[in-house]
């Protein structure tokens, strides 16, 4: 568990397009104003935590499902807990605070030092089928007391967002993770159809069970998968240029060369 719980030494800042410290009154007085990230053109990671690879985040744009390639899916994973054990707001507060703890082994979420707050960027090191390592990230798009949403950048496995929420109903607190996504490019789309969807289901089932277990419940995960749009957006095939899978693989293959260069550089300067 310790290897995936990275209390990062601060990850990232977004590059604001707009005035960074606008008050709600200055942006129309909307009640949700402080819950949303400020508009950004491209992501920027100012400090990379030890062990994290910032390979596919800096300089990337955010991508909604509109910019993705593959079929559009909405996947919902829910667990139910007794309300007397945890309220919706307490559950979300804990989830934000301990987010990396609930992930499956082999996957790391380098949380921002300031926590899951709107506009913060987190780096991810994932393990895909075939033990392939993939480096990417997410930005906190939205966060309030009952929910938070992570949005993906260009090159991520999927274009879209994941919303984590909790609600209270009939004496139960329902924790939910909901993914709205398209595979970013043709390779990831192929990967999803060849086992990727099942792996993603396993990933979030594990996460939801861990959330429930944290509150002392052995929960059954209710999974609902809806194909929102069966059409693939072929005009987006060129997203493959940003593919974090390809870029991560090239980076890994270049590791020996970088090691030799570093050694030679160290000798010449030492």
């Amino acid at each position: 568990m310790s290897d995936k719980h990275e209390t990062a030494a601060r990850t990232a800042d977004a590059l604001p397009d707009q005035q960074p410290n606008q008050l709600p009154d200055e942006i129309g007085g909307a009640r949700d104003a402080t819950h949303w990230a400020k508009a950004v053109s491209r992501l920027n990671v100012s400090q990379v935590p030890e062990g994290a690879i910032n390979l596919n985040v800096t300089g990337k744009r955010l991508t909604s499902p509109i910019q993705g390639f593959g079929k559009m899916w909405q996947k919902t994973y829910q667990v139910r807990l007794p309300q007397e054990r945890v309220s919706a707001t307490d559950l979300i507060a804990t989830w934000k605070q301990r987010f990396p703890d609930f992930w499956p082994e082999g996957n790391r979420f380098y949380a921002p030092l300031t926590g899951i707050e709107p506009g913060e960027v987190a780096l991810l090191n994932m393990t895909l089928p075939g033990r392939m390592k993939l480096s990417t990230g997410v930005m906190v798009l939205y966060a309030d007391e009952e929910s938070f949403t992570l949005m993906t950048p260009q090159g991520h496995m999927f274009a879209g967002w994941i919303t984590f929420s909790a609600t209270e109903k009939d004496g139960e607190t329902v924790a939910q993770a909901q993914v709205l996504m398209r595979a970013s490019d043709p390779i990831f789309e192929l990967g999803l159809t060849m086992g990727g969807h099942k792996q993603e289901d396993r990933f979030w089932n594990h996460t939801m069970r861990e959330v429930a277990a944290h509150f002392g419940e052995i929960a059954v995960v209710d999974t609902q998968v809806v194909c929102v749009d069966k059409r693939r957006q072929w005009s987006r095939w060129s997203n493959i240029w940003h593919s974090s899978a390809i870029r991560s693989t090239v980076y890994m293959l270049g590791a020996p060369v970088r090691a030799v260069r570093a050694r030679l550089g160290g000798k010449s300067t030492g």
Partner: protein
Amino acid sequence: MTESTATFDVRQIGPASIVDIRGDVTSGSEDVLMSAYDAAGNAKSIVLNFSELSYMNSGGIGLLVTLLVRVNRQSQKLLAFGLSDHYRQIFELTRLDEAVGIHDSEQAALRAAGAG
């Protein structure tokens, strides 16, 4: 979060259907929004009026993406007006502005819909 407090009233103007949105748009608004879309019928353009929107979370934005898919499937256009600076920023942030035509006024939106 699951209960909807938003209303979606539909007006037909020529080839466009205007959906007047009032209140809080969250994921709980799905049924009422989709009912409004069904009521909009076979309009060539669906025009969303956000001038009375008071709150929207990420679930609400997700609903708009889902609506966009349905609109595209019917070869309709999705337009919007009445967005405050704050909600315009959110449309830019989530890149919805690349798929939804955003206009300053109802007249401008209707002109774009071919109903002005």
